[in-house]
């Protein structure tokens, strides 16, 4: 049984950065590659591959962007990291900038975290005074600085190309990919967009070596993950766990046993019913940005589906047809189910629509917004059908 490990407690300030600046850029990327770390924001893209593509690109300017637009419902680990570990984060951003050859790092901070901004800015000012930012950092010859830009209340701007659009002063509408940001990103320059936790983990990896990181987790999902646990449990909060931990084990840690279901990965994640609590978190099965919401036995799964779909209906950017029009249709379907007015035939149509949305939407939001609906209508059929809320008419 895994216990909680407080890795992120022990970091010698600046250690990762000093080590990185003493290595070549290629060696920094090699260290990250050997650690096997994958993006911690939810998408799980191998960080070393991203940094390598960016480093290899030939372009006069490059950028590293820290995605602090933590918007996934149920995720609050970045909030904790930003308020409690900014120094490690800045180390991580600087390391990343060094690895890819960027001179500027941008922190895209969501508008809801404006109360953190002043604190972060003053810490950045301190670092500039200490020679940890600016020209010739720690005498290495590497020039780098970090700027904070605010979001303006759009969950879709957590998607990396929508984030870049927002930084460029446009609507936060995701771009066509390929080309990817590592190739053509902010103002056309190669850009690496990384999650807060990823950058902090990279600082640790450089400080303590990739083998240390590989001690935890599995072969495919190396290292630990910060989970934000909330919902119907006694001990909600941020937990650091090794990848490969099962849902049941998590419930035990947070005292949420007896749950009916667990939502892993936020509104865009998977709904795990009780009988599948032996499933393990990791890129092999339940990948997640860290959001774990415990759903107690008293909860109505249609309310859960409704909550998530209302979220997506509001936050969809509106560009592509499947997401813009599909989410409201799914939400309407949930309302019909609640009223007992949804025929099995129409339910099947909506499930097909959900599957189309998963493959035909332009970005990750649309591709995952149907997940919860599909999971709930599959795993909780008895609960969602046959309600007597309405007149019992079939839907055409």
């Amino acid at each position, binding site marked *: 049984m895994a216990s909680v490990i407080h890795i992120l407690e022990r970091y010698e300030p600046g250690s990762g950065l000093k080590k990185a600046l003493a290595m070549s850029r290629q060696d920094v990327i090699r260290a990250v590659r050997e650690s096997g770390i994958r993006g911690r924001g939810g998408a799980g893209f191998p960080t070393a591959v991203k940094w390598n*593509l960016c480093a*290899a*690109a*030939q*372009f006069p300017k490059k950028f590293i962007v820290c995605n602090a637009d933590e918007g996934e419902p149920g995720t609050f680990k970045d909030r904790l990291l930003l308020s409690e570990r900014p120094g490690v984060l800045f180390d991580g951003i600087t390391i990343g900038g060094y690895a890819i050859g960027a001179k500027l790092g941008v922190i895209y901070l969501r508008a809801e975290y404006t109360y953190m901004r002043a604190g972060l800015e003053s810490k950045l000012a301190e670092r500039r005074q200490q020679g940890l930012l600016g020209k010739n950092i720690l005498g290495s010859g590497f020039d780098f600085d970090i700027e904070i830009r605010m979001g303006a209340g*759009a969950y879709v701007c957590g998607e990396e*190309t929508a984030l870049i*659009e927002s930084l*460029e002063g*446009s*609507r936060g509408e995701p*771009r*066509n*990919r*390929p*080309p990817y940001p590592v*190739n*053509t990103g902010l*103002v*056309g*320059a*190669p850009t690496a967009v990384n999650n807060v936790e990823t950058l902090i983990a990279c600082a640790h990896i450089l400080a303590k070596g990739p083998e240390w990181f590989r001690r935890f987790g599995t072969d495919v999902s190396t290292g630990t993950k910060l989970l934000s646990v909330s919902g119907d449990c006694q001990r909600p909060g941020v937990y650091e766990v090794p990848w490969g931990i099962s849902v049941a084990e998590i419930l035990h840690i947070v005292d949420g046993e007896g749950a009916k279901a667990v939502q892993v990965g936020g509104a865009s994640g998977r709904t795990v019913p009780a009988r599948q609590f032996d499933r393990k978190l990791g890129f092999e099965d339940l990948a997640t940005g860290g959001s774990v919401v415990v759903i107690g036995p008293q909860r109505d799964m249609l309310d859960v589906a409704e909550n998530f779909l209302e979220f997506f*209906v*509001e*936050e*969809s*950017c*509106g*560009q*592509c*047809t*499947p997401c*813009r*029009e*599909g*989410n*409201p*249709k799914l939400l309407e379907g949930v309302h019909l189910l609640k009223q007992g007015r949804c025929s099995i035939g129409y339910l099947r*149509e909506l499930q*097909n*629509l959900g*599957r*189309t949305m*998963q*493959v*035909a*939407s*332009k970005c990750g939001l649309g*591709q995952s917004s149907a997940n919860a609906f599909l999971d709930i209508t599959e795993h909780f059929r008895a609960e969602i059908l046959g309600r007597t809320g309405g007149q019992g008419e079939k839907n055409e």
Partner: protein
Amino acid sequence: MSDTNKPAPTRAVTSEPPTTEKPQVVAAGKPTDIGGQVAVKIDDIELKVPFGMTILEAAKSVGIRIPTLCYHEDLCLAGVCRICVVEVSKQRTLQTACTFPITEPITVTTTSPRVRQARRHVLDLLLSKHYGECYSCFRNNNCELQALAKEYGVDFYRFGHPKEPRHEIDRSSYAVVRDMNKCVLCRRCVRTCIDLQSVGVLTAAHRSDQTKIETFMDRQLADVICINCGQCINRCPCGALRANDPSDEIWAAIDDPAKHVVVQTAPSPRAAIGEAFGLPPGTSVTQEMNTALRRCGFDRVFDTNTTADLTIIEEGTELLTRLYRALVKGEKGILPQLTSCSPGWVKFCEHFYPDYLPLLSTCKSPQQMFGALIKTYYAQKQGIDPSSIVSVSLMPCSAKKFEANRPEMQSSGFKDVDYGLTTREMAQMVKEAGIDLPHMPKSHFDLPFGDASGAGLIFGATGGVMEAAIRSVVELVTGLKAEEVFKDANVEPVRGFDGIKYMEIPIPQLGPVPALYANLVRKGKLAPDWEWLKGAVLKVAVAHGTANARKVMDDIRAGGKFAECHFIEFMACPGGCLGGGGQPIPTSPSIRAARAKAIYAEDMGLPLRKSHENPHVLRLYDEFLTDGPCGEQSHKFLHTHYTPRGDYLV
């Protein structure tokens, strides 16, 4: 202090399409691949394509058709409708063929169960919001949404269909009507207005299912800086955008025995109206059209090319007087002279470059010149009461509807042109009357205006006004025949679809000043000889599409190459009038090229090819405009003034 008195802004508008929606430029890749060929397999065809070519283009090159909706040849990429999704090897999700660049060997499958279901779902979802029935829509049988629905076998509304409209229809503008209940949010109109035309009236506003194409603060179109070019209408795939159609009123006039209804027809409709009857683009049906119009009930059918010839004489003369004022009298701020026959361009200039209005030629457009003459010269000559004349113009243009309603366009004492009718609307009227236009017997235009020269005809293509002017000015100044200076009198350098064309014309020799200018010489507006043009090199330019107009005007403002020009032709619409906002839909580079070819071919076959040789126009100067070009009567009926509007909305 009025804001409109403020000097125009100096900052150039730099709105560009998002980086990944320009033609694909991949910043990094294996150096050996860039410019090289990549192998790709599409369905069962193997081929090699240039690095970065999209799947859609690659498929087209081997004759594989992939359906699209938001994609348009003229516009930057969008990738929002998701109709063109295909299976691509190594990709978990479906990819849009119109945007996916081929940068490594891949296998593409253009149909699969997932693809078929996805396309059908997209259509079902669009139809769940699309309010309106096909039979009552002006795009019935010419609608991309309808065509796709048929292709994908939509036989029931899987996700419902709206029973009520959500939005008010915006009919405020004379030219463009917006019905957002039919909008499929393909963003073509936004890309047209911002990127292609650089006018920037339309934008996507709000988010998610509240997304709507709106103007600034959702104001009515008449209250924002719309230049009425109608390019958005041409590119809309369905019936959300249309022109403001007056045909009901025209039928009423035709049916009223007390009204004398005349129609003037511009050059461009002739080469395009056939498309509405199933003929291939570029089939000229001028003389069949004349008969069809008479059978509709028009009392007279006139040729706008006649007043195009008149415009050339007036504007060419104006150019010579301006050159005289600038080169001999040293007057500043009057060159280059800018053409003024495109009402979309005129409004563009009034909004964005109001301080340069003095450069606009004071000549009206051929349509408006004709309007003034019909209710004066023609009415007098024929003994018709001008108040009973209803003057209709058949134009490729949506902005002409606005132009006809400009308050200053009343020099005849009445509204000079009552209705501007587009090619599409006229085709509709002809069909309603049960007339099979392509099989009509041929007939000429009516007197007293008759048939015009080829120079008037080529007005329809970009560079046409310039070429017509050059043919005449060269002959009037040098005494040579235009054929001696340009082969077949064709001025090739100003032809074609390059956005901005530039040409220098050295004046080879000087001839006598024509008798036509006697009055101007007497009044001192021209010298009795052309000596002051000895050794002169005439510098001219041609721009089409207002994005190119903006570039030229910004260059003039910065004192660049175009500030040194003497004469510049501007057309608001890409391709010139043949690509106008009233032309048959759809539009594409190849369709416009076909129309241009037809126009130039017809010009070559005409007996008269220069404006100043048109006998009907010369008779006009004898009988009516007795002061000659740019004389008193001309100024009264054929010249106009402009309104500095500025681009302050607030």
